């Protein structure tokens, strides 16, 4: 029996002329895959298939994913032997071919290993889904038919995970398995994909590129990620955005800011949610360079099921200078005493911070 294996390419050196493009090889692989499918040898394939579905969203997760590094998107898909059946921004298959592909997946003739959904499932108005249609039909129908065929279902971004933008509005934006903190969502609380896993929620607006890449690696290699109560993988969502923030020393001694452009902590007045929500933003830097808090922008808590929060951004609701929402798991009385003492103990170089960010 023939076993299909895509070759792992060396990174194409783009500094001096462009050698082999890999496109002919890709054709060979795809042709070989088709041949294999035709011979009913699907179970033998090493190639994994993935389909990226766009729901009610902005495409930001796709553009985040394109910032993956080591390996980049191209290297990642090749190394993992993932055949991307279709991506709405990257594929050039014709609508007719796309329709045939969808029919094959739904009929079970084409295996679907990994379904990635970006954007919410738009269910409005009044549950009809007619605010988002394909050929006159609600697009939500496509989400359901693909999810029921996939080995693994991944919600990419907060909108796909929890509804996100529009979850309180007429569009009735719904997450795949949650609406905000409420389990259920579009696919229902008991949904599991063919591999037995629930929807894997890669929260974030957008989701961090390293998380998307990492989740793809896990899915392709058959690793089941441990999930938190909102089905976010602990791998990236067990520590707060606060971990690794370069303003931590200021936070520690309660050296606070109440305006933009300074170096101190943004948690107490500027609405920073870094200590409140999980995420890897200060551990795995964005675009290999930085994070919002490092650039003086408060964390907006975009991995939280209730993002975007109802209260104004850039403000911290507080009582006597102590935020209403305290860092994860903290006792208010202890925290107030600790912060009072910490402020008194703050070193001069932090209190007298002169250089701006």
């Amino acid at each position, binding site marked *: 029996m023939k076993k299909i294996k895509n070759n792992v390419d060396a990174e194409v050196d783009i500094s001096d002329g462009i050698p082999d493009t890999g496109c002919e090889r890709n054709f060979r692989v795809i042709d070989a895959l088709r041949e294999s499918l035709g011979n009913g040898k699907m179970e033998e394939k090493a190639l994994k298939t993935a389909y990226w579905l766009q729901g*009610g969203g902005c495409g930001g997760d796709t553009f985040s994913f394109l910032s993956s590094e080591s390996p980049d998107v191209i290297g990642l898909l090749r190394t993992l032997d993932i055949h991307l059946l279709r991506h709405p921004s990257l594929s050039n298959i014709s609508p007719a071919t796309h329709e045939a592909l969808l029919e094959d997946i739904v009929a079970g003739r084409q295996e679907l290993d990994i379904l990635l959904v970006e954007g919410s499932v738009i269910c409005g108005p009044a549950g009809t889904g007619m605010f988002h249609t394909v050929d006159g039909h609600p697009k939500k129908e496509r989400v359901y038919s693909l999810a029921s065929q996939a080995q693994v279902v991944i919600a990419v971004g907060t909108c796909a995970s929890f509804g996100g933008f*529009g979850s309180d509005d007429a569009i009735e934006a719904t997450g795949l398995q949650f609406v905000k903190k409420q389990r259920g969502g579009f696919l229902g609380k008991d949904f599991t994909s063919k591999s037995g896993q629930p929807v894997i929620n890669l929260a974030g607006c957008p989701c961090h590129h390293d998380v998307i890449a990492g989740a793809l690696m896990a899915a392709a290699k058959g690793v089941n990620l441990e999930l938190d109560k909102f089905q976010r993988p602990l791998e990236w969502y067990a520590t707060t955005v606060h971990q690794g923030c370069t303003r931590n020393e200021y936070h520690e001694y309660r050296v606070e800011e109440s305006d933009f452009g300074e170096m101190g902590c943004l948690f107490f007045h500027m609405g920073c949610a870094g200590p409140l929500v999980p995420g890897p933003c200060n551990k795995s830097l964005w675009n290999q360079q930085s994070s919002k808090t490092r650039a*003086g922008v408060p964390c907006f808590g975009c991995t939280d099921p209730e993002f975007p929060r109802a209260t104004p951004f850039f403000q911290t609701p507080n009582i006597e200078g102590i935020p209403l929402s305290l860092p994860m798991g903290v006792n208010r009385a202890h925290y107030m005493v600790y912060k009072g003492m910490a402020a008194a103990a703050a070193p001069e170089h932090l209190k007298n911070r002169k250089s701006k960010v």
Partner: protein
Amino acid sequence: MVKIAKGINIPLNRAEGDLQINVEIEGGVISEAWSAGTMFRGFEGMMRGRGALDGLVMTPRVCGICSITHLTAAVEALDTIAGVTPPDNARRLRNLALMVETVQSDVRHAILMFMVDFANREAYDKHPLWNEALVRYQPLAGRAAVEVIRESKRLIQVMAIIGGQWPHTSFMVPGGVTSIPEVSKLLQCRIIVERFCSWYERSILGCSIERWQAIGSVGDLDAWLDESPAHRDSEVGFFIRFSREAGLHTCGRGPNRFLSYGNLPLPLDTAVQGTGSRMLAAGYAVSTTVHHFEAAQITEDVSHSWYEQGSVPVHPFAGKTKPYASGQSGQLYSWVKAPRYCGEVVETGPLAEMVIGGNPLFCDMIEKDGPNVMARQLARLVRPTGLLAPMSVWLGELVDKRGDAFYRSVLTIPDGQGAGMIQAARGALGHWVKIQDEKITHYQIITPTAWNGSPRDENGVRGAWEEALIGTKVKDINNPVEAGHVVRSFDPCLVCAVHCLKKGRETGIVKLGFAQ
């Protein structure tokens, strides 16, 4: 001659949002077109009642590929309301981020979303350059596709250094920006931009930017093409050769009226030249005749859109966005509204910027052939030639003046109204905002795709790309790639699918989605 009208389906994906286009074809030529956005997201409704600054966080999420442009429009509206002029360094940092976003969008759109169709086997396997197109543009594998993904990603690091991350940062705030990078990081940005620039010159242009800018006419362009193999083999050279063979200079005319809000406010003290207070001029052009731009002439018409109907088209400070989904009835067919300038349909985007800025090559192209797909797409592919040098200048000025202010404190936003009007990668973008008691009471957004991809207005006049589709020859109605090229030359911020109706039957048109 027997008229033929058959149903077809055109691939118009690879854009943000959902779009469906219905066309009628008679005798192999498109005779009618309806463009419908099939997704309603209702951002404007989400904004009302929120905190005064929340547009800085919410509106970048309108669009994942032009998130900085929404941030820029949002902050300019708030600057106006607060009556504050950001310091020079804030201008430089804001402009740099916006320019990086535009440049990455231009090269990604050109290679990954437009020229990838040249590698479409069904459409072009008889085209003499098809094999080469495949080697260049095959998705995730073609040489140019791979290069663009890698090089644009590196350039994006500049936005992350300035704003923390991309997409979806909110580092622009009324009065300036939230931080200024350290000197070493500014120097690193300069290296990243210079490295990108040398790749752009080598791979995209095949010549230096200076050499490209010496092209002042179609005759010059032909001479440039013949001058060296490097020119012919570059992406620009290949694009021109492929497009001419495919006839892309003969289709996609559109309204032949252009709009630009102008862009990139100049620092008070800078070596970068501009027109008035901005680097790029605002204007309204009829063919290549440029007129003064007046913001008060903008109206939004919803006569064919799925919104609660008003009696007359109104200015965006008075406009509402109340969805009204009536099913498949009557003349309503899009979630996109129909913005008009002086009551006229206009085109916006890089070609409009070239015409309004008086670029001699593009003015000559339009005077000779009228607007067309090739000119429109070429304008996008070479727009970075005008941006990369000022980016380096501003980075140099930032290094020299790093100690100067980057933020003027704005502690509260007073009651008032303001507009942020800028040029996004895809064209004219406006945010119209009203604030009362530190809350948003009104938020209207007109995106470039609303200008270019609008439905008909109250006079039944087609939107820009609806108009551009008329007269397009379709060789194979089962794979009408030509219609795809026409719409895609406007860089639609929508995922599209084109359908064709039987003549006289309008059933089956419906629902379009729009990334707003």
